[in-house]
């Protein structure tokens, strides 16, 4: 770098630039006023919005605190960054887990009743559940010692009935990832809390089964979620193996 270039860099830091106004409120108001996109477009935008928000979060800069950057949506899941997490429920008992996951069924029954083509790993799950919102759960391990949870949820029932709301603390790292070309998020670090809001607005604490890393993505109208004690690379390998 020449002396002139160095002088310009120093100069740039001393140019009188007014303090940036808070743009989030106005931008959100302008977005609200805009034409309501059609459903498919809304979906595309919601998925894409993840990229914007997740990048802000990945960089983990404290100023990324405006409403514009604090909410993520993907596959019907809404993830909010919060300053303080609610208390996380203790480790689940078998009963808790079954209450949360739904009715225990055979794999064949799940295939028949899912209403969409279930994706499966080479390894057969130890337990299968049919849950609310049409979610099919594969549990690997035992309820007391879950190795891996796989959730597959058709999107059509999401917005009408339930909203899954995750509260992620400031220490939760949220990274945008691509799973076979579909955008997704990898959540790691500090625990996050999952709340399920039903159509009446009642909150069901779903965090009992949650405490580990999570990979969420969406493909062909189905939201996928992997939860387990894995790193990002392993999660992505598992996601790609889910066929």
């Amino acid at each position, binding site marked *: 770098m*020449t002396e*002139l*270039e*160095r*002088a*310009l*860099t*120093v*100069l*740039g*830091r*001393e*140019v*009188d*630039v*007014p*303090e*940036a*106004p*808070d*743009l*989030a409120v*106005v*931008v959100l108001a*302008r*977005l609200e006023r*805009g034409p309501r996109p059609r459903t498919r*477009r809304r979906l*595309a*935008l919601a*998925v*894409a*919005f993840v*990229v*914007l928000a997740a*990048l*802000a979060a990945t*960089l983990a*800069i404290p*100023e*990324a605190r*405006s409403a*514009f*950057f604090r909410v993520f949506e993907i596959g019907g899941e809404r993830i909010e960054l919060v300053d303080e997490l609610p208390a996380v429920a203790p480790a689940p008992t078998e009963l808790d887990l079954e209450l949360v996951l739904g009715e225990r069924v055979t794999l064949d029954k799940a295939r028949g009743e899912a209403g969409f083509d279930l994706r499966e790993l080479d390894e057969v799950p130890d337990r299968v559940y049919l849950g609310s919102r049409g979610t099919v759960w594969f549990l690997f391990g035992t309820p007391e010692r879950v190795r891996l949870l796989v959730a597959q949820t058709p999107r059509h029932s999401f917005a009408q009935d339930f909203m899954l709301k995750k509260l992620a603390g400031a220490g939760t790292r949220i990274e*945008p990832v*691509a799973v076979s070309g579909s*955008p997704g998020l990898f959540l790691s670090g500090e625990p996050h809390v999952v709340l399920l809001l039903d159509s009446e607005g009642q909150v069901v604490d779903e965090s009992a089964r949650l405490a580990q890393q999570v990979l969420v993505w969406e493909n062909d109208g189905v939201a996928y979620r992997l939860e387990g004690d894995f790193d990002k690379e392993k999660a992505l390998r598992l996601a790609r193996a889910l066929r």
Partner: protein
Amino acid sequence: MYQAIAFRTAYLLTGSSADAEDAAQTGFVKAWAALPRFRPGAPFRPWLLRIVANEAHNRRRSARRRAELQLRTTAAYPQGDAAPSPEGAALGRERREELLAAVNRLDERDRDVLTCRYFLELSEDETADVLGVRRGTVKSRTARALARLAEAVER
């Protein structure tokens, strides 16, 4: 975080606080609408800044000229904000004012590339994205702009 860099970019390109705020706001709205076209994994900042810079250029064209940039006065440094660096102090206020005046007199193309590279401290790749030109063009424009600036300062 993106708000600050978006506003700073727009301000340095327009020299007007009102235009910068408007350009940054519109840039965010347009970026949101354009997100489906954003390639996951691509660097986000230059993509956003290019949209904001386009908005800033539109406003600058409407105003027909860019307001001149000014140096902060010593009193204008908010508490806790970066005070003039030791290098900045060494550069001397008079020299800095001369240099900024020379930058202000450059034509739009030269000023934009120097603004991106040195005032916004963007890399050549980022600058290419923001200005919508190739990296080689950024290199050649920067070299020419620096030469013209050096000549102007030496006069």
